[in-house]
């Protein structure tokens, strides 16, 4: 019985991990710093979370569809340099649109590789990661471009509605919209079906390839958005801007509870993961914890959460795609006893 209680506790811990983490960070930050629980800090945590947030948000449907996109950082760099480069050529707003369009375009390339050429997404996006990171350097001759109109993007990070800035507001709205889409609309539900079991979804008349392709394009869109916002708000388009973004984005999504195996996840969980990670980073930074020590903490947190998840959900749960094609009910479900 004791064992059972422990398991239940673990299950609850996993279920409410975001709340627990956010509260823990708030308590830790509040106790160790005088100025942590202030409007200013909240605003800055939210604002800082935005860029990784967009990337993580874009990654969410991809992971739900059972795929992975390693190229988000490269897409972001490409979008950023496009935006800044195009500013003097076609004007500020069209240039921003062009940046996002570049993200979408590369997303479409990923979709093409995965859906049409049937290359495993891990390999395909590793290749596009290399290709577009390299292209970004070649196009700019490795030099960050500086904006001709540095003032244009500044309002993005200005004060706006209490703890928000315009870009963090857009991020929050995007996360909520995505939540509504994923949970409440048929296409959203179909995406889960595709990630959970693509062949079953196909046989129900769902165009699984279409959904997978769309998820990559969407990821491109969000990476484009991230690159565009980042470049405008820093008034610079750096070819290496996205190079360090992949790991925090994946970490945030996974901490939120979306699984790499597909079929599960939510954009609000991702939002939570992004915020928890962002708040933790800020709290640690303010305490003067060196970045490598922070890396140790986040790494341990990641391992802890996923191990806990694993242990709580039982060893019977399949851990890979191939294993889940064995369509059996989890062994720990009670036996049906219907013949009275």
């Amino acid at each position, binding site marked *: 019985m004791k064992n059972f209680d422990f398991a239940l506790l673990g299950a609850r811990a996993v279920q409410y991990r975001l709340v627990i983490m956010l509260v823990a960070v708030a308590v830790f930050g509040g106790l160790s710093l005088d100025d942590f629980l202030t409007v200013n800090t909240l*605003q800055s945590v939210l604002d800082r979370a935005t860029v990784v947030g967009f990337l993580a948000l874009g990654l969410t449907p991809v992971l739900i569809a059972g795929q992975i996109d390693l190229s988000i950082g490269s897409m972001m760099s490409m979008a950023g340099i496009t935006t800044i480069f195009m500013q003097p050529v076609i004007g500020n707003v069209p240039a921003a649109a062009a940046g996002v369009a570049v993200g979408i375009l590369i997303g479409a390339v990923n979709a093409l590789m995965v859906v049409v050429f049937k290359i495993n997404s891990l390999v395909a996006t590793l290749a596009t990661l290399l290709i577009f990171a390299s292209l970004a350097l070649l196009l700019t001759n490795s030099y960050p471009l*500086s904006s001709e109109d540095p003032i244009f993007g500044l309002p993005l990070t200005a004060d706006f509605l209490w703890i928000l800035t315009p870009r963090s507001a857009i991020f929050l709205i995007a996360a909520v919209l995505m939540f509504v889409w994923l949970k409440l609309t048929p296409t959203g539900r179909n995406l889960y079906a595709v990630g959970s079991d693509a062949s079953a979804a196909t046989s129900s008349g769902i165009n699984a390839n279409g959904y997978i392709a769309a998820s990559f394009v969407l990821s491109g869109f969000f990476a484009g958005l991230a690159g565009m916002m980042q470049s405008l708000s*820093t008034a610079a388009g750096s070819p290496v801007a996205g190079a*360090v973004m992949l790991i925090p984005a994946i970490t945030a999504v996974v901490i939120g509870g979306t699984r790499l195996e597909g079929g599960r996840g939510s954009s609000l969980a991702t939002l939570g993961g992004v915020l928890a990670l962002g708040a933790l980073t800020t709290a640690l*930074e303010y305490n003067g914890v060196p*970045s490598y020590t922070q890396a140790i903490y986040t790494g341990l947190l990641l391992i802890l959460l996923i191990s806990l998840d694993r242990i709580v959900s039982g060893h019977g749960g399949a851990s890979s795609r191939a294993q889940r094609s064995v369509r059996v009910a989890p062994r720990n479900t009670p036996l049906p006893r219907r013949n009275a």
Partner: protein
Amino acid sequence: TAADTDTASGDAGSVEGKSICYVTLANSHPYVTPANEGAQAAADAAGVELTIVSEEFSAQTGAEQLNSCVSRGVDGILLWPADENSYLPGLLKAEQAGIPVVAIDTRAGDESMELIKSFAGADKYDQGKISAQQLDGALDSTGGIVVIAGQAGNGTEIARSGGFLDELESMGSGLEILATVNADFDQQKALVASRDLITKFGDQIKGVYAQDDTMAKGFLQALEESGLDFVPVVVGINGEAGAFDNIREGKQFSTILQPPFRNGELAIETLIAVMKGETVPEMVPLENTIVDSSNVDDLEPAL
């Protein structure tokens, strides 16, 4: 020079208990770490509270940390720019909030520098220029050279490449760049690339511009392996202990010494002076000391 700023730390009373936010380039790096230690030492000496946050070589992260420092309402900010432009919005915010910003080690872009009260450090663009002069002089302005550059897109790489190329051009140098490779400030990568360069160009390589001593070492290793017995003029930067040895042995022509610990101290002292309302020069230089066979025995390696 140093004398200007020594006075800054003289009257510590007025800044005691104030807070400084220091956006550093990295926590773990041969040059940056001692600089951070120097900054910490100077802050401790002045009794100010120093929070060090590391952008881990990412200007994007740094820009966000800068914003975050501003919104914390600290009394002064020390910034290590990872590229020229990305900090402009944060600098504007700091200006609005009345928080003085001083840059360390690397210059930001011109527009950004207008919002930065002072710059304390060796000028990396200048280092590129010095390297160009060294090579040009040693080779009498003729012959082929190879450039082993750092990580593409990295701020230091950009400054050292820029200064080097601009100076060659303005000198009207006759040096011919045979090839440029990026070896990411990594000895192994420099080694692998240099083997190929030596194979391709052999003794056409009269000179080598390595953007740090680690990569210079990689080149020398490749040269040694090749068994060829020509001696190109190898110019490095950073003043590493290994480079001192190589200069003594005549394998390397020169390096540029910039003491990191002192760089950190100097930057904090400058910032404190600004916070006190003293006027400081636009640039507080950390001397770029050229180390070659003539003075190698008189100097201490920086790292």
